[in-house]
Each structure stands twice: as C-alpha cells, then as structure tokens.
C-alpha cells in the first residue's frame, strides 16, 4: 500500500513540483538568453546592469510584472479575457509532463523515471494538447474586442492550424521508423537501432524544424505578434501578470517543441553514437545532461534564427507551408513507407 502510494502519488507530485519550480526560472533565463544572443548578433551587449552581466534581469522583470496593476480594459469580454492566458499556459505545461528528461534514477530503493507520465500515445497527446494553445490565442484575441488582437489571433490560428499539418506529417515519418508513439519508446528504439533518427529521416527533421518555429509563432514566422505591424498581436490588450502568462506559455511551448525535436530526431537522452563501445566513457555524463544540452542547442537555434531572418509576409508564409512543406512531408511519408515495405 505504501509502495503503491509512493510510486503513484508521491513521486509524480515531487516531479511536478520540481519541474514547475525549475520551469518558472528557466523561462526567465530563456528570455535573458534571447536578449543576450540577439544583442551579441547585433554587436550590442544586452542586459548588463542588474547583477553581474545582467544575470538577475529575469528576476527583476518577474518582480516588476507581478507588482504591475492588474489592468482589464473596459471593452473586453471579461470571463474569456481572463481564461485565455490560462488556457495557453495550461496547454504548454501539460505537454511538458510527457517529455522524458532522462533515463531516470534509483533513489532509496524506488525507481524515479525521467518522465512524469510515460503514456503509450505520448507524442499524439503532446501534439493534441499543444494544438489547444490555438484556442487560448484565438480566445484572447477575440475577447480583447480590439482590432489588432483580433487580426493577430486570426493570423495565429490560421498559421498554427496550417503548420500543424506539415509538423504532424514529418513526425509521422519519424514514428514509422520508431514503431511506437511512446516518448520513452522512441528513444529506446533509437538506442536499439544504434542511430539517431535524424540520419534516417533528414528531410522530416528539416520540415519539423521549420514547422516548429512556425508552430510556436517565433520569428521569422511571428505573424501573430508582428510588433511592427500589429503592435503586440493577440496580447496587445494584456498587461502585467496576464501578459507574462502568455509569454510563459510561448516560451514553454518553445521548450516543448525543442524537446520533441530532440527526442524524436536527436536521440533524446542518449549520448552520441549510443551503441559504439569505444565511446562508453561518454556515459559518465548523466543522461539528463545530454538531453538538456541538446534542448539548449535547439533553443539557441531558435534565437539564432530570430536574429538572422526578416519576418515573412503572410501570403509567403502560407505559400511556404501549403506549396512546399506539406507536399514534401507527404512525399517523404510515402517514400518512408515504400522503403520499409521493400526492406521488410
């Protein structure tokens, strides 16, 4: 009975607590990293004044946002306006519980898995729940009762729904090789095959990487926010803590997408060349560190892309998806299936 309680209640609760605790801080530091890297790309220094090298900037920002007046414009549809940021954050946080962060450790005789919930349809669930983010965005834009948020929300919804197609098809190509939807199973499949799936499915990886940037509404596909044309997109009317919730949701979604990319194509928590004995000394590094290093690399690439490319025009954005990415991903899916039949 105690064992049952500990395994099914205590350990998940502790994991959730630790994850949420780390996440709040991590999101702040992703924003900090973004400001720093963008500054470096533009030959600037970025935040420097709060703490050494500006390292305490995220904490100062959080405190400022928490103490800001909770302002709700008079013209908004209040219940939906209040609900929208919660939907975005809830959707982003729920997906996080399905990401395997490592192999898991054994502590006091209990095995603590590296994932909060190893669901056998994990990846499907992640894609489904992260699709709910669209609702949060469109509700926020609609409830704001103002033109810029409405335009931003419409753009965001159209863009996210469109790119979800290319995203899902490229994920499917990876899944066909793995033969399972479980996030842990996908990593184990890569271990058994001894190769990361990016070397088997490079095209699918390319499509996924482009689609994931668009799916999280990041530059150069940030049509939903488009500061220079839509003021602030769907959160124009939001301020203070509610605005921060949207931001938290956006950066968590970035983190989740990077984690899916790593899990599906870059071997999750596996070390490079997972089956080569000569490199066994790399196992000295805990699996969680490998995973984090890969995720951080992808977060860097996100910021790097934002610092490099100008924003797409809206019709170009849609043309890229419907005319290039979706046909390419379907073709890739068909070829994958064909090759698998021929090899079987």
């Amino acid at each position, binding site marked *: 009975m105690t064992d049952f309680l500990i395994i099914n209640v205590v350990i998940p609760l502790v994991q959730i607590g630790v994850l949420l605790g780390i996440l709040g801080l991590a999101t702040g530091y992703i924003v900090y990293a973004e400001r720093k890297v963008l500054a470096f790309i533009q*030959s600037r220094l970025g935040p420097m004044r709060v703490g050494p090298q500006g390292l305490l900037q995220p904490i100062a920002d959080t405190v400022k946002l928490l103490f800001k007046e909770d302002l709700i414009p008079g013209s908004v549809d209040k219940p939906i306006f209040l609900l929208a940021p919660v939907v975005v954050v809830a959707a982003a946080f729920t997906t996080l519980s399905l990401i395997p962060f490592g192999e898991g450790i054994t502590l006091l005789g209990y095995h603590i898995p590296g994932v909060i919930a190893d669901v056998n349809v994990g990846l499907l669930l992640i894609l489904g729940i992260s699709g709910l983010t669209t609702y949060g965005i469109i509700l926020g834009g609609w409830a704001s009762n103002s033109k810029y948020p409405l335009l931003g929300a419409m753009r965001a919804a159209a863009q996210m729904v469109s790119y979800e197609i290319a995203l899902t098809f490229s994920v499917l190509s990876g899944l066909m090789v793995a033969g399972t939807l479980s996030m842990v199973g996908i990593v184990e499949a890569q271990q058994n095959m001894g190769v990361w799936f990016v070397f088997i499915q490079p095209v699918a990886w390319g499509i996924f990487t482009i689609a994931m940037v668009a799916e999280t509404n990041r530059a150069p596909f940030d049509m939903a926010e488009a500061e220079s044309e839509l003021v602030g997109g769907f959160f124009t009317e939001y301020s203070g803590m509610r605005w921060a919730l949207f931001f938290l949701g956006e950066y968590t979604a970035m983190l989740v997408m990077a984690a899916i990319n790593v899990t599906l194509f870059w071997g999750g928590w596996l070390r490079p060349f997972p089956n080569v004995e000569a490199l066994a000394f790399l196992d000295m590094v805990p699996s969680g560190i490998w995973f984090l290093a890969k995720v951080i690399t992808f977060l860097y690439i996100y910021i790097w892309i934002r610092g*490099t490319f100008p924003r797409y025009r809206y019709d170009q954005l849609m043309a890229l998806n419907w005319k290039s990415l979706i046909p390419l991903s379907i073709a890739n899916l068909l070829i994958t299936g064909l090759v698998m039949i021929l090899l079987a």
Partner: protein
Amino acid sequence: MSTNISSAPKKGFFEQFLLLELLKGMWLTLKYTFKPKVTVQYPLERESVHPNYRGILRVDESTCIACYLCEKICPDKCIHLEGERGYTKGKGGKYATYFYIDHARCLFCGLCEEVCPVDSIYHSNEYEAAVYNRADAVHDLRILDSGHNIVHYER
C-alpha cells in the same frame, strides 16, 4: 498571371532545397556573435571626444580683455558681459566684471571661439550640460572659468 519582376538569378533545385542562402546568413550572424561589441556603457564608461569637439563654453578669466567681440558675433545673443578698466586682476587694460553665457540658448557654432583675439573663450570637451531648470543653464564667470559641477555616476 503575375510576372516575375525579380532580377535575381534563378537558383538550382538543390541550392533552393538545401537552403544554402539561409545557412550563409546564419553563418554571418554567428560570426557577429563573437565579434567585439560596440556598446559603450555610458555612465560607467565614457567615450573620449575629439579635441576639436565643441562642448560647453569656458572662459579663461585671466586672459579675457572684455572686448565684447564674442557678445557681438553671437547669433543667439547668449553671451552677456561687462568689462571695466583697472589693475585689480594683476594686469593692465580691461577685464570682465561679469560674464554670463546661457547654454540653453547657445547653438555651439564656435563663432565666439574663432573671433576671440586672445583665445580666452573656448569650447571645452565637456558635454554633460543637463540641468534641472533653465536658470542653472546660465553659467556665470566663476563657473565659466573653473568648470561647472558635473556629478559623475558612481555605483
């Protein structure tokens, strides 16, 4: 149908497919990431200005002969002075008894500096002339001679 008005050369399939142009752009930004930064963190660091920089006006009280040339040439009428004959300043001839320059009106053209026959009035290299009210922007002879009080930032 729409015509292609772009004059850029058409790219081959693989050039387009592998996004080589985009990778080139990313390589450029990566190089800039590690280049030295141009930011000068102003209150902590200061850029040194060129010696010819036309900053806040200063007057060397001991050499001024109160000839009124600077007052006359000033297009903004921001210089006001009075002189009198005497020996009190340790020299013969005229000296300035009072001398006001309104820096809120000065356009930093440098004409007074050029016209001064004894090089008494000159532009210094100081540029931190911000004040809390307009009266403080009017510098009298004491400030003009010894420099106004600039509070430097300290952490």
